[in-house]
């Protein structure tokens, strides 16, 4: 073993360069991998949620971009009557902060789900099969009987705004009481504020001028009695009657459907899709699960692929170093063979040497990678936005991998060394 280090020491600069090459690869691998772990955790959380229910999106919306499309109450009630549906519940989602007119796309790109208001119906029988209850860090989840001004906030929101159960929180100009803080989930709920759908709806209406004016018209129209209405000219009367029809409960960004026990959710999704294809978009659990898996697979492939690329380059630098080292040490190999070294013992020595180079590079790379991860996480922890997961199993396997990489890179040179003819090797130099 000492021999390996002494051989490396004799060619300090070259060993340094080789190890440095590996270290960079492993560094990239560690950092990217820890980020991928974090991302996957988030994605898997989302998957768990979305496969626990059938999700309804308004026709004309595309996921996050949403827009003004909503799910009317009537449609939801009709869907609730479909055989196999246990309950349907509308959800109103909107961003926690009102968009800043001077900076419409936000202060910066954040990792993961942006802070979001989740307005849910406290009295619904709907439940998400995979996520019936979220673990609490403090207090409790808002639910039936709660005032509209009570909210439960996600872990990251609480950390970012330094809030605890019992505190008052201002959201879009209104005061709310925090009744609970969720435990860390590493996914969506961390940046959610759960509140009553009624108040979330109201805030949504206020933030969209079109909806706001509809509501104002409705309020105005409601002031006019039916008798007064009858006296108005035909055209005006019709307009006012329509304005009266505006019902805030028709405003739902999306809806969750829970199915009865024993019902196949994907078949149920299809039934609903067939019946209501002109009104809603139905996201079946299976379809969404597959879509999410595909997205995360691509993400993983990109991240790990780029890190692997760095590693392969590092691997080739080991191959190169070992080949050089072997051609410099040809005579040494000849001597060893003359002393009775078998080809396999020569091959083993050189392979182990390459493995050790890989291992040292790996340990250094992991060291720097961890340092960076810890520092970045610490810097971001204040906002609860850690973007890395430090996973011991992953780190250990990266170290193992660096050794294996070295060994693999060493195999070819070692094999060449083992095959050297003694007589020719001895004649070198």
């Amino acid at each position, binding site marked *: 073993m000492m*021999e390996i280090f002494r051989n490396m020491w004799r060619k300090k600069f070259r060993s340094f360069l080789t190890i440095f090459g590996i270290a960079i690869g492993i560094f990239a691998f560690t950092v990217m991998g820890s980020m991928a772990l974090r991302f996957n955790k988030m994605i898997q959380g989302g998957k768990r949620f979305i496969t626990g229910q059938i999700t309804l999106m308004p026709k004309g919306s595309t996921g996050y971009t949403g827009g003004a499309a909503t799910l009317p109450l009537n449609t939801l009630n009709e869907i609730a009557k479909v055989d196999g549906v246990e309950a349907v519940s509308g959800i109103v989602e909107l961003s926690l902060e009102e968009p800043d007119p001077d900076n419409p796309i936000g202060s910066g790109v954040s990792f993961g789900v942006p802070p979001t208001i989740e307005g849910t119906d406290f009295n619904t029988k709907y439940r998400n099969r995979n996520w019936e209850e979220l673990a609490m860090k403090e207090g409790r989840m808002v639910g039936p009987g709660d005032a509209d001004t009570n909210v439960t906030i996600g872990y990251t929101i609480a950390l970012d705004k330094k809030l605890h159960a019992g505190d008052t929180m201002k959201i879009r100009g209104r005061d709310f009481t925090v009744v609970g803080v969720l435990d860390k989930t590493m996914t969506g709920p961390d940046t959610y504020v759960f509140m009553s759908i009624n108040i979330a709806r109201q805030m949504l209406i206020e933030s969209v001028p079109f909806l706001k004016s509809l509501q104002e018209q409705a309020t105005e129209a409601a002031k006019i009695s039916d008798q007064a209405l009858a006296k108005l000219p035909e055209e005006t009367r019709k307009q006012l009657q329509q304005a009266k029809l505006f019902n805030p409960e028709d405003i739902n960004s999306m809806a969750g459907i829970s199915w009865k026990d024993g019902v196949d959710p994907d078949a149920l999704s299809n039934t609903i899709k067939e019946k209501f294809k002109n009104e809603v978009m139905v996201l079946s659990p299976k379809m969404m699960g597959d879509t999410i898996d595909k997205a995360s697979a691509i993400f993983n492939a990109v991240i790990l692929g780029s890190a692997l690329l760095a590693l392969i380059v590092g691997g080739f630098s080991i191959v190169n170093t070992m080949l050089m080292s072997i051609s410099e040490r040809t005579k040494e190999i000849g*001597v*060893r063979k*003359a002393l*009775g070294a078998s080809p396999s013992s020569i091959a083993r020595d050189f392979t182990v040497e390459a493995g050790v180079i890989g291992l040292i590079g790996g340990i250094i790379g992991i060291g720097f990678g961890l340092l960076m991860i810890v520092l970045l996480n610490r810097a971001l922890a204040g906002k609860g936005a850690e973007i890395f997961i430090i996973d011991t199993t992953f780190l250990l396997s990266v170290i193992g991998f660096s050794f294996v990489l070295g060994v693999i890179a060493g195999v070819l040179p070692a094999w060449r060394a083992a095959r050297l003819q003694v*007589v020719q090797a*001895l004649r070198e130099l």
Partner: protein
Amino acid sequence: MPKTIIRAENIHKTYHMSKTNEVHALQGINLEVMEGDFSAIIGPSGCGKSTLMQILGLLDRPDSGRLYINDVDTSTMKERQAVKFRANTIGFIFQGFNLLPALTALENVMLAGRYGGLNRVEKKKRARRLLEMMGLAERLHHTPNELSGGQQQRVAIARALINSPSLILADEPTGELDSETSLEIIELLKELNEKNNQTFVLVTHNLEVANSCKKIIHLKDGKNTSA
């Protein structure tokens, strides 16, 4: 009746340098070396001394002919057997010492012990004892570049002896040493020969060295002229 250590019969070796250029290095060598012999192979450059040495050491194989070492026919051995046989039966001393630069004197000697299949404790014990015998007790942990030429060759001798070989082959053992050191080394080898009855075959240019050997094998044009 002393035992025969080497018996070579009609050994031929041709090197194919290129398609048209063949070098007939050995053209029918016959020789016999008995246990306890101290023989020198001498001859002009290019007479095949080194080739013969390599073939005697099983580093290379003859094209034809038979070579018995310790009454074992080595010409039919598989490479793996040859490796093992070499490690246990033959000790090498090279002209350029050929110590591994990254290893200390002790480790260099122990390395050969490892290939000879000695266990950890045993090879360390033997290596230490041999180096002490060579007068290098103070130099065990020095690397070759911290040793003089004579000291390096002593380490190489200790290395050749660690597996108690029945045959020690020395290719120009004094080639890179000054005449005084050369004599010392030859005396050392002779002493080993006399004390332990170990068999030595030397290749040398140095007539003085050759003349001090019990037996001289003259090589010329790939043939031995006298035995």
